[in-house]
């Protein structure tokens, strides 16, 4: 069977408050830490939803909109850059699994 790209995979995910223009982020990342002292920048490859990306200068950027609340970055980041919360049902993003 055909291999799916990550964006095709995430296209199958049912996100909450998708219609809202401004959702409240549930994860805060101090990318200053990622871009100064972190030796591995591992969130850019271990995150199953690729919420952490590297730009052409090798700087880490984070977006929470695709987050599927798995928790990976909460453990993988050992530099203290990630403040992780659950999304607010009213004002946040996050997932509603159809199957789980």
């Amino acid at each position: 069977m055909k291999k799916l790209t990550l964006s095709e995979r995430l296209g199958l995910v049912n996100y909450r408050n998708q219609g809202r223009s401004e959702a409240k982020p549930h994860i805060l990342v101090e990318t200053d830490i990622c871009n100064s002292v972190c030796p591995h920048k591992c969130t850019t490859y271990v995150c199953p939803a690729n919420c952490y990306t590297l730009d052409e200068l090798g700087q880490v950027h984070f977006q929470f909109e695709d987050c599927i609340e798995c928790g990976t970055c909460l453990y993988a980041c050992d530099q203290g850059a990630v403040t992780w919360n659950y999304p607010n049902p009213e004002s946040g993003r996050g997932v509603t699994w159809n199957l789980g």
Partner: protein
Amino acid sequence: MEDKFDCIIVGGGIAGLSTAMTLARGGAKFLLIERGEFCGSKNVSGGVLWGSDLARLVPNYWEEEEGGWERFVSHRRLTFMDEQSAFSLDFKSGHFAEPPYSGVTVLRARFDNWLAGKVEEAIAESAHPDESFLAQNILVEEVLMEDGRVVGIRAGEEKFFADSVILAEGINNLLTRQVGLQSDYVPADYVAVGVKEVIQFDRSVLEDRFQLSGLGGLSNEFVGFASGGVEGGGFLYTNRESVSIGLVLGMKDLREKKHTPYDLLNAFKAHPAVADTLRGGEVLEYSAHVVSTGDIRGMPRELYGDGVLLAGEAANLLLNAGKAIQGMDYAMRSGLLAAETVLAAKQKGDFSAATLKRYRDALEESFVLQDMRNFQGAVHLLHSPQMFGAVPNLVCDFGRQFFTVDSEPSKKSSQMFRESVKRHSSYWDLIKLGFKASRSL
């Protein structure tokens, strides 16, 4: 305080719902709060619910035609993989095809939602049908404490009070950390990340392809190439009209080896032995979730405190000792035992840590902590590099030699084995491994 509950349960997964069911039947007043739109909507598992406790919660659940479970496991398979080959231990038995089943496959958004419906029914039939609630779409932000004891919870501006709070919030146990039962930072050493796809088939195609009769199903675990050199393994479970296929990858090893979960999943799905089983399927959902490795060192420092109990994966209750990945059955049993402890505390009128310790004792006596303690050696063994590298490679290499018929004089199998050992390991390493295995498994 008039509207004080006997118990507030945070989390409507399997642990929380099992607690709720038991409390409803025991005549307690409780409030269960689930942050998802419905119970199960935030939950991901492989997943097989092993064991027989489901029948305690929902007697004769197998008689219900549209029950929330998928298939009972009647066919088990453990597959060793290298890049091209797959060598399996395969066990199918008519003994597994009779209820009570010892394992059912589930999709959590369906299963938990169904179980929540059963809890609603139990509340309606209980001693307090108007005083116990199952509240969904509400996020608990804080556990309320007074003089070192837990007295309730806060959700937004609203506060709710109870004699006891059961945290059944799952592996990402923020509230457990808040009350000080677990450190704020849990290192990557004690967790893995699971990634999974649910792939749909025409039901008759699925049943023919996997030789399923009735609601019988297959549970297949994979070690070796499946996880792309990263500590962990793969799984494939059949549902009614789909398969759940995925990987569980050690977080620390994934970080060190610089791999990406969905790329590894693609490679696993493309393996010749796997690709053949997935042909023509349509991916319905991609999901991921952190999962405990079952390492006891990752557990919270205690499972109870004054007015508070931890159940399910919030307490890191999980085990993979090579036979099965057990987590949901641990959640179910711990939820049952937590509820029984609360009922006993209610009768005594004492919810102090000294009384709630009974929960810990009950867990220690049950299969949950007995097995977790007895099989820690197996957990470490399965996480050793040989188990997802040299061993599956050796097994497949031997298989390839043994099953090759090539119009040349054949070697004896003992010689084939010696050659495989030489290529992928050494006798000395195998003896050490065999010794560890015989002690730990």
